[in-house]
Every structure is written in structure tokens, then in C-alpha cells.
């Protein structure tokens, strides 16, 4: 039976047809559909989304999708990675029509991300170090702590609440200040930067430490070494720990205009 849809992994910069082999989701044959100098990396599928109740199976699909993006990057340089489960209705001609219609947009984005990759940076700080830093800058906290030790039980209870609240606010200001400082050191070395206060996962090594900031950066291949040096300096500072991961396809930086 002819498959009436195409599962889309990514769009790459190449003008030559190629086969990537049976590396797709559920060992599907992955191939490319070209238009001028750009190409969609796809496999033929039924016109229905991948859905399952089986968590392990679903995770496997996502990893297979990720693997295809990595292989395509090795073959064609930086690609535009697509989200999981993006399926184009129609055959190869429908995909070609889409590439033709969106050519300016897609080719422009491929040029913008050429020679770059996405890197993720998390900076953690030791809690005790951070607390000492906050105390050293605020005599008021030290005074408050002393009065708690001297005060009666009831009064100490209220003062402790006051101290906790002040410490929380001042710690927050201090982490923001540090995050801004590190950001200003990183920014000149990257093409684009996104700051986030969260991370999707914390490795065991960093558990129990305070996450100061997560930076997602689009970095030119030649700037990666220098960025690594700057991060090494931060990592060597007392109380700070840097996690530097990548390269990834530019998942956080692809901007496709609405063409509907």
C-alpha cells in the first residue's frame, strides 16, 4: 500500500538526493526530498500521528528521531530540526511543493544557523557559599541572627520568620546579580543567547546545589573553544560549578514564519 504522508525529521542544506538507510522511527527508511539547494529529511508513513500508551515505546521513537537529526547533521552540516510527530499530508510531491512555497524562509534560516550549533550551559552554586556571601554583604542579617539567639522563644520565632524571608529575598537578588554577570561574560562569544531559570534535568553531581541560571546558546563552531575557556574560569571559582553540554541541532533557535 502506498504511504500517503511523510514524517519530517529536519530540513538540511543539500541539492542531491540521498538515502540515510533504515535509521528512522521503527526502522523506517529515511531519505531526502530536494528542492533547489534544500532538502527535507523524511520517511514515508500513514497519515496519522505516532501515538501510544507505552511509555518505553514512545521514548524509543523520540530517541530514534533524535538519532536521525544527528546523522543528518553529520552528513549535511547544521539542519533545521523539527519537533517530534510533524507529519506532512501527501506524497513526495506535496513535500516538494512545501519546500518550494517556503523556500525563502527555510533557506534563510539554514544560512542563519550555518556553521553553528546549540549548546546548553548551567551554572550552579554551593548553597553554603551563597549564604555566606549574602551574610557578608548585609550586616542587618547578622544583627537579626544575633537577636534571635538572645530573644525569648516566642519573639525568636517571629524574628526567625523575618530572617528567613529577608534571606530568601537577598539570596534571590544575589543570584540574579551573579547570573547577569556571567551572562555578560558569555554573551559576546555567542551568536544568540536565551536565559532560563530552570533546567529539564539535574545530574546527580549537581543535586543539592543552587541553579543560578541556564543559558541556551547558538555558538559558531570557531567560538566554542573560547567559550569553553570562559566557562572553565567560572568553574574554577570557589563555590561555582558549570555544566556545558552540546553540540545540539539548533532546536531553540529555529524561527519559521507562519505560512498558513
Amino acid at each position, binding site marked *: 500500500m502506498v504511504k500517503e*504522508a511523510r514524517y*519530517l525529521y529536519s*530540513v538540511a542544506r543539500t541539492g542531491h538526493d540521498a538515502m540515510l538507510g533504515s535509521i528512522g522511527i521503527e526502522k523506517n527508511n529515511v531519505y531526502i526530498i530536494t528542492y533547489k539547494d534544500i532538502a527535507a529529511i523524511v520517511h514515508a508513513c500513514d*497519515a*496519522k*500521528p*505516532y*501515538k*501510544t*500508551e507505552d*511509555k518505553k515505546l*514512545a*521514548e524509543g521513537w*523520540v*530517541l530514534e*528521531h*533524535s538519532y536521525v537529526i544527528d546523522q543528518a547533521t553529520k552528513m549535511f552540516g547544521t539542519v*533545521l*530540526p*523539527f*519537533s*517530534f*510527530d*510533524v*507529519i*506532512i*499530508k501527501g506524497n513526495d510531491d*506535496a513535500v516538494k511543493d*512545501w519546500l518550494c512555497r517556503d523556500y525563502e524562509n527555510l533557506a534563510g534560516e539554514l544560512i542563519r544557523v550555518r556553521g553553528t550549533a546549540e549548546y*546548553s550551559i548551567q551554572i550552579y552554586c554551593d548553597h553554603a557559599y551563597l549564604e555566606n556571601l549574602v551574610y557578608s554583604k548585609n550586616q542587618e542579617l547578622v544583627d537579626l541572627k544575633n537577636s534571635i539567639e538572645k530573644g*525569648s*522563644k*516566642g*519573639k*525568636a*520565632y*517571629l524574628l526567625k*520568620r523575618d530572617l528567613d524571608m529577608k534571606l530568601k529575598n537577598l539570596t534571590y537578588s544575589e543570584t540574579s546579580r551573579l547570573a547577569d554577570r556571567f551572562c555578560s561574560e558569555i554573551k559576546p562569544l555567542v551568536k544568540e543567547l536565551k536565559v532560563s531559570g*530552570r533546567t*529539564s*534535568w539535574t*545530574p546527580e553531581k549537581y543535586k543539592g546545589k543552587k541553579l543560578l541560571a541556564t543559558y541556551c546558546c547558538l555558538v559558531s563552531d570557531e567560538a*566554542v573553544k573560547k567559550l*569553553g*575557556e570562559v*566557562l572553565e574560569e567560572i*568553574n574554577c571559582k570557589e563555590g561555582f560549578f*558549570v555544566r*556545558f*553540554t*552540546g*553540540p*545540539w541541532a539548533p*532546536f*531553540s533557535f*529555529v524561527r*519559521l514564519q*507562519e*505560512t*498558513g
Partner: protein
Amino acid sequence: MNPERESCLVEVLDRLLNKGAVLNADLIISVAGIPLIGVTLKAMIAGMETMLEYGIMEDWDKSSRELYASQETHIPLFPGEQVLYKAFGYLREDEGLIKCWVPGIWNITSQRIILWIKTPGKVLFETPLENLRVLRVPASHEVRKELELIYPEGRTRISLSERDEFEEALAGAAEATNAMKRSEICESGQLPYQI
């Protein structure tokens, strides 16, 4: 330092499910114009508690937060009056036909005890700290942690799961605000203490 490409499943999922390009709806398989970028899958993999973190329910979260924020009201305080302590608890309603425990937020301010309900913003009960006496009520069959407030106009029963902390805070408020000195707290709960 060199970047590491750790193959962490969570990070791969985060990228593949929440980032990356998406197409306009007319080209891709869609239901009622909503692209099926694995929404069900995302929900399944991420699990309910991490859905907000993954951004799946962001719109819902934002709108509900806005709704709550629009309903946010503040306790009317006297000039110079400060809220010192807040805890969730109940007030015993014995008047009228229905006798029940009414929930709310107990506030100890520098001048009063107030039971406040957020929506609609309303003071259900208030009495000045001055001339207030507090009595521990022995555990009832409901095993509620109760206190009895005795004040010039009458007496009322309240209940808080954080009763010990509430008492500490009340004692602290009395000291901090130089209200009348309390007599000793009687652990047996038989003798009232006074603020």
C-alpha cells in the same frame, strides 16, 4: 572545558517535544486545526507534575494565575498594623441552624487576630489582642487541634493544624507589641492564659 554530549533522555525529550520547528496546520496531519505534535505523548512522558515545567500547560497555568490574581484581595489593616503570622484554619460557627467549621486564613497582626477569606475578600472574625485570653481545648473526638478565644464580647472556638506554631506566634506578637503580659501557658489546657 569541553562541552559534553551526555545522552540524557530527559534533555532529548525536552528538545524534541518542546522545541524544534513546527509546521503550519494545513500541511500537517491535524485535528480541528491543531497540529498533533505529539501532545498526548508529551503528556504521557512528562507526567502531570512536570507538565507545567515542560510548558505544556503554560497557557492554562497563566490564565488561572491571572484569574486568581484578579481575585486577590488584601486584609484591611489599620495604619501601622502589620501581619505577623498566617496559617490556614477554621472558626466554629455555632449560631444559626447550621453548626459547622468555617475555613479561612488566620492572621495574627500587631493588633488583632483576624480570620480572612480570600474569595470574596472578607473578614469573618476579628478581635483585638488586648484583653484576649486563649485556652487550649483538649482533643475532641474529631481530634481537631482547637483553641478557645475568650474576649470581652464573648468566646469562640477555632482550630488550626499548626496550633503550636500559632500559639508561639501569638505569644511573640504579644511580646513584640507590648500587649498585656500573658500569664503562663498551662499545658494541661485547663487554665486560660491571657495576652
